[in-house]
């Protein structure tokens, strides 16, 4: 059953718990995880000595199916509750060390004797940040608290010491899951869509816990056991900080997992689970052949909540009134940033008039295009003309898209207008500074309607541009700049109200990613008006008119920051990376 939340993950004010609060919250983990599925007793009565490369030596004695003894590096043994689940010859073990905020997740292959060890711990963010700040010669930043609730992990590869020569093989990092999407239904009735679009991050759509409106991203690890069994883990950094680890078996599409951390209500979740999956798709990957992601480098964490430049009312007011710039103030927006492949500027409307008339009491705006970059506009019925800089592009034949700033007031808005000279339809996207959460975010409103212009066709009475879910599941790379590799990202249009972007690493593998709400309107077959707001990230509104035939776009970015308010151009070249068939899981018509 879908459970919508009042606040999405990126809006939840997670409690900044102290170390003492974390210790108290984690105390019940001493007895091991809960599980709906029967836990395995395969290790009961056995002893394992796990040797890791550069990490700990762990000597286990499994007293029974739920209790173990562990000696770390020859130290004094401790007792702890544990849980284990089997997948063929693999055993997934999870336990914490009582009286501490740390524990181990083991993946042991009883057949090969290889083992991967995750040491998972809490209250570890602040020391890392302090060390990183010292290294970089800056002050540590705790703008969003000390994040004691955020799980941390260390990973070691190793083997079970059986007394003979140590095996030379190891489990390895991998890109062999990259590009894959899986729908999971867990034994605890949780349904989730996961997308492995990067080798250090992943997307997921919480169908049950959050209703499936948005996709969110988390730094992730992917480890290859063999060609069909993989270890996947993620930490919900910037959100609850919950740790998830799963053993994925692609032969029978099953998973064995563990979830550990505190949810948005600060309630402990420590459970093991099994699940059954369905592949939703496999999109393209962009590494050269032979690159298997085994030497992937460090897994970085993108922290937009930490780096977001929060501004006061007064600062935003000053920016939007005194530091507002559109398209280089008439000098042209240049080809930097996201506009490196902008199309030819449309100038032939200079000297002509246009009225866009939105339905249902929406704006009616009259235009006079003074020249190629300057227009005059006024609301219908208003005698006062205002001047504004604009840029106009033609993303499809006789379909035009232009933008300009609206009145110099606080909050301040812009208008982005798509008008179709083949059928008389128009859509106005209005971006406005400020949201209920941050002054320097933007909000967006779509209006559908018609246009009036000399020589334009009579518009239809009932037909309009409108909302669409046709793009759901599509993945498209966008190259914003010439050069090798240039500025390139991949868009994943995840739900009718969300999207995610993936930034490629220098070797072409997927790297860091983030997500935001998104909105999709259909202008013509294969031509869409897509917008997003980088909520809790940098607040920008981006709107692109995406032509799937030319695989090109024309668009605009609207942003307010300490350097002022800007309206700029977006123009990029696209490649189709693939599509996930996820409509049925989102409740959309298939």
């Amino acid at each position, binding site marked *: 059953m879908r459970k919508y939340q009042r606040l999405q993950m990126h809006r939840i004010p997670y409690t900044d718990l102290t170390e003492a609060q974390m210790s108290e919250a984690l105390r019940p983990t001493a007895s091991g995880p809960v599980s709906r599925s029967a836990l395995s007793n395969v290790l009961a009565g056995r002893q394992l000595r796990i040797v890791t490369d550069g990490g700990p030596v762990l000597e286990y004695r499994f007293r029974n199916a739920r209790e173990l003894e562990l000696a770390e590096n020859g130290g004094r043994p401790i007792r702890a509750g544990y849980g284990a689940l089997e997948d063929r010859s693999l055993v997934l073990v999870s336990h914490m060390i009582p009286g501490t905020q740390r524990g181990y997740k083991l993946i042991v292959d009883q057949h090969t004797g290889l083992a991967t060890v995750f040491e998972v711990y809490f209250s570890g963010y602040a020391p890392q940040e302090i060390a990183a700040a010292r*290294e*970089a*010669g800056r002050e540590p930043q705790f703008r969003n608290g000390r994040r004691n609730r955020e799980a941390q992990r260390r990973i070691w590869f190793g083997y079970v010491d059986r007394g003979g020569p140590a095996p030379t093989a190891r489990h390895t990092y991998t890109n062999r899951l990259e590009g894959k999407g899986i729908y999971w239904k867990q034994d605890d009735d949780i349904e989730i869509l996961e997308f492995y679009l990067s080798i250090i991050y992943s997307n997921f759509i919480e169908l049950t816990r959050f209703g499936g409106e948005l996709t969110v991203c988390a730094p992730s690890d992917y480890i290859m056991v063999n060609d069909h069994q993989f270890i996947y883990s993620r930490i919900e950094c910037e959100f609850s900080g919950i740790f998830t680890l799963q053993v994925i078996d692609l032969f029978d599409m099953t998973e064995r997992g563990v979830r550990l951390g505190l949810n948005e209500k600060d309630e402990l979740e420590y459970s093991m689970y099994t699940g059954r999956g369905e592949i939703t798709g496999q999109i393209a990957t962009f590494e050269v052949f032979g690159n298997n992601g085994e030497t992937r480098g460090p897994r*970085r964490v*993108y922290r*937009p909540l930490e*780096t977001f430049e929060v501004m006061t009312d007064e600062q935003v007011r000053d920016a939007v009134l005194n530091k507002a710039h559109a398209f280089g103030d008439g000098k042209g927006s240049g080809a*930097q*940033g*996201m506009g490196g492949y902008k199309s030819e500027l449309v100038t032939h409307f200079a000297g002509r008039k246009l009225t866009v008339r939105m339905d249902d009491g929406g704006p009616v705006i009259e235009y006079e295009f003074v020249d190629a970059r300057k227009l005059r506009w006024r609301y219908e019925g208003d005698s006062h003309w205002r001047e504004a800089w604009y840029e106009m592009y033609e993303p499809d034949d006789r379909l035009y898209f232009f933008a300009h700033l609206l009145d110099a007031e606080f909050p301040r808005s812009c208008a982005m207008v798509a008008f179709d000279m083949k059928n008389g339809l128009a859509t106005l996207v209005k971006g406005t500074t400020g949201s209920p959460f941050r002054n320097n975010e933007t909000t967006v409103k779509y209006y559908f309607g018609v246009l009036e212009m000399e020589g334009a066709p009579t518009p239809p009475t009932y037909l309009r541009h409108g909302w669409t879910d046709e793009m759901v599941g599509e993945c498209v790379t966008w190259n*914003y*700049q010439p*050069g*090798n*590799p*240039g*500025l390139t*990202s991949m868009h994943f249009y995840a739900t009718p109200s969300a999207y995610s*972007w993936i*930034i*490629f*690493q*220098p070797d072409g593998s997927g*790297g*860091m990613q*983030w997500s935001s709400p998104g909105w999709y309107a259909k202008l013509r077959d294969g031509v869409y008006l897509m917008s997003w707001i*980088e909520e809790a*990230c*940098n607040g*920008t509104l981006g709107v692109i008119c995406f032509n799937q035939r030319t695989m090109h776009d024309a668009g605009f*970015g609207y942003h307010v920051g300490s350097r002022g308010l800007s309206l700029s151009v977006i123009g990029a070249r696209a490649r189709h990376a693939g599509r996930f068939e996820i409509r049925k899981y989102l409740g959309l018509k298939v």
Partner: protein
Amino acid sequence: MSGMRARSTRREFFAKGGAILGAGVASAVGVSSAVAAGTRSGEEELMRLRRELDHAKEREAIRGVHLAFAAQIESRSYDALAELFDEGAMVNLSGVSATGKAGIRRLFAEQYREQTAAVLHCAYRPNARQSEDAVTIADDCTQATAILHVDVQLGVPLQDDCTAAQMARLQGQLADCRWESGRLEARYVKSAGEWKIASLIYPAG
């Protein structure tokens, strides 16, 4: 280095440092033959031989400084880089320049780490003109110059400040990345028993 009395060698300095020492030993054998022939006094020849061996050791030490510089550039260990330079050093890499150790530290910490420089040196490789490399060490072994032929990987940083560019920069992504052939013109000084870079110039192509 004006007025510096020096010995110059042309060697494949970058990648084959071992060969330098080998050449020194080989020349020692030749010297022994000359002594035997009675062309110089034995003491003179021994002094010359000692100088040659000293210079071979110095060349190896200078090579170590240069390899450290190249390795730290490639691994982006920018904090450690400044320690390779003398207090009054200057650096100019494809037009991105700084003077003084503190300035060089700032250059690498800010312009390189934050990718605000117009162009970055990302890696070096010895190239086909390596045999033309020349290292000249002053007789008193306190100063040296070197011409080192290299291929350099030039990176042009992403200049934009949009979210995608910020994220790409965090991952070390560049707007453009290409290799070009050129040469490093280096000057070294020995201070407190350690060779430091006194100037390092890679002329802009």
